[in-house]
């Protein structure tokens, strides 16, 4: 299914109260964090008035020291957590105010990849990828074809029938990436996707995300791995003291302030 058709399918779900989908909305940034506050415990805020704008088709690294709130930022976005204050606009719709029963439809527009892969070990690679389309209720034949394509894109064609449990770490992460892209979501979120992989594999997996990005998908990639940030000059968002500090041309550029905690 081409991306436009998929967008068609989900547009009503993402439409705000009364606000109709419009061409203008399509030109807006894909993702906006507006003055977001979040704390898990009283007196220990993780995000304190964080503001961040991500345009369609961008590839953005989110970095910062451990505990700075990278995972929290992503969890707020896919509504595993809710904000204390502020707005998170995804495709113009405020995620923070989505009703609980609309959350699944939000997640169908996102592809999420984790450090620990989150594959079902007793399922085959294909089954692990197919699940993202099964929840949409697509016909099995179409699912099979799309799963085959997705596995091919991540370099795993022919491994579809292998149980996830027997795959290597790198292969497992590729399956997870295939699952994230098979539904052709507008936005891919990756939370330390290379954290469990050795340095060479980490570079390979980053390459995979770059390829996906080249296909037009917006990618938000959280990592604290400095070497990945330096592979290419890319926009980096550093979380510090509950706020986002933008470094548009990457950590290697002149604008990058080396005093930032990394």
């Amino acid at each position, binding site marked *: 299914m081409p991306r436009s058709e998929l967008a068609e399918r989900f547009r009503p779900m993402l439409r705000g109260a009364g606000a109709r989908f419009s061409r203008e909305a399509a030109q807006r940034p894909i993702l906006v964090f507006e003055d977001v506050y979040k704390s898990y415990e009283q007196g220990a805020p993780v995000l304190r008035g964080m503001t961040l704008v991500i345009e369609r088709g961008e590839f953005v690294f989110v970095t910062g020291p451990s505990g700075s709130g990278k995972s929290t930022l992503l969890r707020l976005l896919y509504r595993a957590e809710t904000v204390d204050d502020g707005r998170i606009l995804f495709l113009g719709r405020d995620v923070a105010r989505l009703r609980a029963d609309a959350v699944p439809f939000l997640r169908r527009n996102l592809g999420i990849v984790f450090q620990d892969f*989150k594959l079902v*070990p*007793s399922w085959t690679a294909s089954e692990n990828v197919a699940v993202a389309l*099964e929840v949409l209720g697509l016909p099995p034949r179409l699912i099979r074809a799309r799963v085959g394509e997705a596995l091919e894109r991540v370099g795993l064609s022919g491994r579809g029938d292998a149980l996830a449990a027997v795959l290597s770490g790198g292969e497992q992460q590729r399956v997870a990436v295939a699952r994230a892209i098979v539904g052709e979501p507008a936005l891919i979120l990756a939370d330390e996707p290379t954290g469990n992989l050795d340095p060479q594999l980490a570079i390979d997996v980053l390459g995979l995300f770059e390829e996906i990005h080249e296909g037009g998908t917006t990618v938000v990639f959280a990592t604290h791995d400095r070497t990945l940030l330096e592979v290419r000059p890319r926009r980096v968002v550093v979380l510090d003291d509950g706020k986002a500090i933008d470094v548009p041309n990457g950590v290697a550029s002149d604008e990058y302030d080396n005093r930032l905690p990394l």
Partner: protein
Amino acid sequence: MLSVTTTRRAKRGMVREWRLHALSVFSLAVAFVCLGAALLVVTNLSAAQDRWAHAGRASVYLKEGASQDDVDALRAALTRVPGVTGARYVSSGDARAEFGREFAGHDALAGLGADAFPASLELDVAPDMPDADLTDAVAKMKLLPAVDDVETYQSWTERLARLVRGGVAASALLAVVVLAAVLAVVGSTMRLVLQRRRMEVEVLKLVGATDAFVRKPFVVEGGVQGALGAVGAIALLAVLFLMVRGRLDSELAALVGVEPSFLPWQVACGMVVLGGVLGAAASLASLRRLVAV
């Protein structure tokens, strides 16, 4: 409705955790065997009650001094009572001889005197004769000078009725036990299954499955467990029933007046449906709170 995906996922879950499911089905079958056995007893007791309620005969015992004329007059009168289709005279000697044939070789009984066997008129009663009419007729018969006593075998019917009522009460109690067993067994099995498949649930929710979508296969699995438990119980009871019936000689059956019968198909189907519905409900109840992602 159930989608292809739901049934496929349920099947996959059951195949991969077949030991757990088999254990659950076995436990449920044990509970259902108790219920089924009670229902089987009720079925046969009420068949016997039905049989005796329409025994189709009554005995009018005659006073010792009754003359042949008295007897003839009485017989003529009795055959005119609506519902009485025939009357046969059995003399004291005949009764003694009949008894002797049935209990040949029992010396202790052979010593019974002729006075232990009063003469009687054996009536054939139409099976559709209402109980009230029969009671009425009996009351009138007892007033006649030649009549000593009347036996309609109704007391047997009443005793059987009491037994049937007891059986029904026991079955109802066992149904409650089965209900509790299904809730407990399916509930804990599904919680265990859910625990083992936590990653599956987490993944489903991450890719945007609704709670209903996540739950459906688990509910199907619970329903299948319940239904299979009932089917297993019925199969086991059928085997036991055939074994017992094989050993039951025809004389005993004749004495009771009914052939033993198995659970009617409606009751058997009802048990399976009950198992399925209870299993599904128990599963649904135990899944109320899904893994939060």
